[in-house]
């Protein structure tokens, strides 16, 4: 009996009529970076809807946090490894941006790069022992790691200004001083889009497939030749660089950095962005960041009731859209169409 004849299911049927048209549109629509292109258009058009200049500032924050969330999503949503201490890396980036110019007279952009390299190095060193842990044990270890960093930032007052933090001098790029909310809107948007594009590149690459495989089965990935611990470490390092660059940007943008940037609540906030928007969805990270940055702004009119409503919204979203906002909505759309 031949094997092929038993395969009753027909191959995905191509209809000859629409084939010519679908090859061009289809290949463009399916292109890896299509979502980034669409996001870029949205980002470019969004300011047309801003009622006031204040929104440039808010959305600059959205993009900066979305950048960190995309990195964390690579780790959590794609590779399946939890981190409750990722704000620690934001802290490294932020304090590098502050300390580099203030203590060493380095240019801001170089400080950002040094911060990213330092984050990668620290992630590499602590990652190996920490990533051996699984599930909730990994959660508590990363939590402890983040907490330790926050304590360092608080206590090394000579370098960091202690609990009050320190001011950050303006970012200057090739003699151009990056200032003002509107400028930062575009700078942070470009950073976020670049981060999203790199994430999409990774997801559809040999290393990316290995990283997605270990999410579902470390055993199977190992048997197929994937070095599981090396792959986890790689994603951890990459996601730490995302967080670090986001942290540096936040510091430059605010002109101030305090230990809160690396705190436990910040880490939880990053996780919430990833989970709320949707694990394993780059667009979801943007949506999650937007929700958690915009919501407190939108709820200020509630005054004292703000936190109650915020808590209720988080619970409601997670109960009714348990896979996160973007994947749940996408699934609903697919369900309706077919």
């Amino acid at each position, binding site marked *: *009996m*031949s*094997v*092929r004849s*038993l*395969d009753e*299911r*027909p*191959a*995905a049927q191509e209809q000859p009529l629409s084939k010519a048209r679908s090859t061009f549109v289809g290949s463009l629509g399916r292109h*890896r970076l299509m979502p980034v292109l669409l996001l870029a258009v949205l980002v470019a058009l969004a300011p047309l809807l801003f009622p006031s200049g204040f929104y440039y500032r808010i959305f600059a924050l959205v993009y900066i946090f979305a950048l960190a969330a995309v990195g964390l999503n690579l780790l959590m949503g794609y590779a399946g490894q939890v981190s409750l201490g990722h704000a620690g890396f934001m802290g490294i980036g932020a304090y590098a941006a502050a300390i580099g110019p203030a203590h060493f007279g380095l240019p801001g952009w170089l400080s950002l790069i040094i911060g990213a390299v330092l984050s990668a190095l620290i992630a590499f060193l602590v990652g190996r022992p920490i990533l051996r842990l699984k599930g909730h044990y990994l959660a508590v270890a990363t939590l402890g790691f983040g907490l330790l960093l926050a304590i360092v930032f608080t206590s090394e007052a000579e370098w960091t200004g202690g609990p009050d933090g320190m001011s950050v001098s303006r970012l200057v790029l090739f003699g151009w001083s990056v200032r003002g909310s509107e400028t930062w809107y575009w700078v942070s948007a470009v950073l976020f889009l670049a981060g999203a594009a*790199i994430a999409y*590149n*990774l997801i*559809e*690459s*040999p*290393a*990316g*497939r*290995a990283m*997605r*495989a270990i*999410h*579902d*089965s470390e*055993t*199977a*990935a*190992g*048997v*197929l*030749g*994937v*070095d*599981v611990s090396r792959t986890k470490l*790689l994603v951890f390092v*990459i996601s730490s660089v995302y967080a670090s660059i986001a942290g540096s940007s936040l510091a430059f943008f605010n002109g101030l950095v305090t230990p809160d940037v690396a705190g436990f609540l910040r880490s939880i906030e990053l996780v919430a962005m990833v989970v709320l928007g949707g694990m*394993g969805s780059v667009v979801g990270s943007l949506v999650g960041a937007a929700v958690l940055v915009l919501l407190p702004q939108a709820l200020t009119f509630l005054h004292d009731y703000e936190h109650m409503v915020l808590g209720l919204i988080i619970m409601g979203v997670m109960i009714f859209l348990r896979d996160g906002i973007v994947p749940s909505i996408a699934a609903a759309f697919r369900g309706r169409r077919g």
Partner: protein
Amino acid sequence: MTILATEGLSLSFGGVRAVDGVSLSVPENFVFSIIGPNGAGKTTLFNLISGVYAPDDGSVRLAGADVTGLKPDRLARCGLSRTFQNLQIFFRMSAIENVMVGRHRHERTGVFADLLHLPAVGRQNRETRAQAEAALDRVGLAGLAGQSAGSLAYGDLKRLEIARALASEPKVLLLDEPAAGCNPVETAALEGVIRGIAAGGVTVVLVEHDMRLVMNVSDRIHVLANGATLAEGTGAEVRSNPAVIEAYLGVHGAREAAHAAH
């Protein structure tokens, strides 16, 4: 020539000798089956050979080299791959992507190239995809390449695991109960797949309960009971071995079977 051999392989779980001093030697290009009653230690033996568990005692040799206690990914690079009794599918990926992971040990792009999607990555992806499509085709799943793995039927998932393991171009392929849960039609298809794999120059080590499948495809059969070797031989030899019959049917059942044969 012997491609895979174990020597006195043993592992205990909390006092229970799950695998107890098993020595076997698999000739190259054979379909070598390991059978035995439930709890005989077949899957544990597989886990020891493929590096998922480390043995308490004994050794594993692959193509002459001592590979005892090597991690699965190292073993994979030495040319050993396997499937799983309890499916280990990458459910968040499509069928073809599952198989593409199987190509991992042959992929040559660096991390920075991957992040920036340099031209080499595009070439690599196309090559990997082509090889993965070929592997899917070998098990008869070519039409389902783009489907999400989570939406495939159980029998298809079993074959998907085989395709994934094949994609890594192993010298030795361990199949852990590939027919478990499959209907007779799927099992018959599997027989063709296994023959095809062996014909392609891959040594197959098979753990299976479906005796018809085992008898039809095996060049040699190794029988385990209570973690230890009970017998080894060709299908006919094993079938007529009183100790084997007793292990499967119990003393009483073996006597009845003997009566029935008269």
